[in-house]
């Protein structure tokens, strides 16, 4: 049975190989921090290339913000590793080349009958994988900008960090 993730729900603790082939659980990737999770079509899509370049620019902030960013796509790990290196990304890619989760999460992009990829979807999660916000990125402009993610990650940080604002 598939269940489309919605704000207020909780994402399963997805376990997939990362871009180096190591199996990783989403909760370990979050590691106690807010997490922006991008379900991505794959390296071939010009919209993904553009949006991920935007995220590469954002990583310079996240590296000091105690917030995480991860990408899940149907590319195999070795393809992800090459794509990640080409982008200059320092965040993690998780590979669902076996399409293990795409249907369970009801995120199959049905209009692409060649790659059977994820429908571009972004989620901002708490460390416990509670879904704070969801973006449907089927149309490019539906995807979160850096400013959107900065706001969402700030909101999650305020929820989970007792000292985020001085009382």
């Amino acid at each position: 049975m598939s269940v489309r993730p919605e704000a207020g729900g909780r994402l399963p603790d997805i376990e997939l190989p990362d871009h180096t082939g190591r199996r990783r659980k989403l909760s370990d990737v979050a590691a106690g921090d807010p997490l922006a999770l991008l379900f991505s079509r794959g390296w071939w899509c010009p919209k993904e290339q553009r949006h991920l370049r935007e995220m590469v620019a954002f990583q310079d902030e996240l590296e000091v913000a105690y917030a995480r960013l991860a990408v899940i796509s149907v590319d195999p790990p070795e393809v992800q590793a090459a794509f990640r290196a080409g982008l200059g990304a320092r965040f993690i890619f998780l590979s669902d080349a076996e399409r293990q989760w795409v249907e369970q999460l009801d995120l199959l992009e049905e209009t692409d009958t060649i790659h059977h990829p994820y429908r571009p979807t972004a989620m901002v999660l708490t460390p416990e994988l509670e879904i704070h916000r969801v973006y449907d990125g089927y149309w490019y402009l539906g995807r979160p900008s850096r400013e959107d993610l900065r706001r969402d990650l700030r909101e999650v940080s305020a929820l989970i960090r007792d000292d985020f604002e001085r009382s």
Partner: protein
Amino acid sequence: MNELPAGAAKLRFDGERLSLDGDGRMFQVDARCLGDDPVAGAYAHVCALADLDAALEYDHPEVQQVRRDALAWWIPLLGDSLVCLTTLALDEARYGGAIAVTTEPAPWDSDPFARIFPGTLLRSDLFSAVAPPAGPVVERYAGVAWPGGSF
């Protein structure tokens, strides 16, 4: 270095050998790397010096940059062979080096941490497997040696 922050453990290096309780300069490491299931005969590339003066601020731009390089390409380059990686903290602010541990020989000449302090290659039975940091965070958590610790 009496009180260790949560998530930190002590490790000593005398310039030739690593030990938990022997002689040599004391460092703080990511405690997970000294876990209960050590890998026998692992390769440990110790980019540190026994000289007590060999230290930089963690916030020094080059110390930040080598952590970026580790996330970007050093960890992927080490691949399946990587057992664990930890920086070496001297206290809440100062960096004393880093150790990369692998099961097989690696292109140590490329180790970005060796840009700061030169590397010494050892065989060690001390280190346990720890999943490498997922990134992109390069800041430390509560003063623990990166990538260890949490809030």
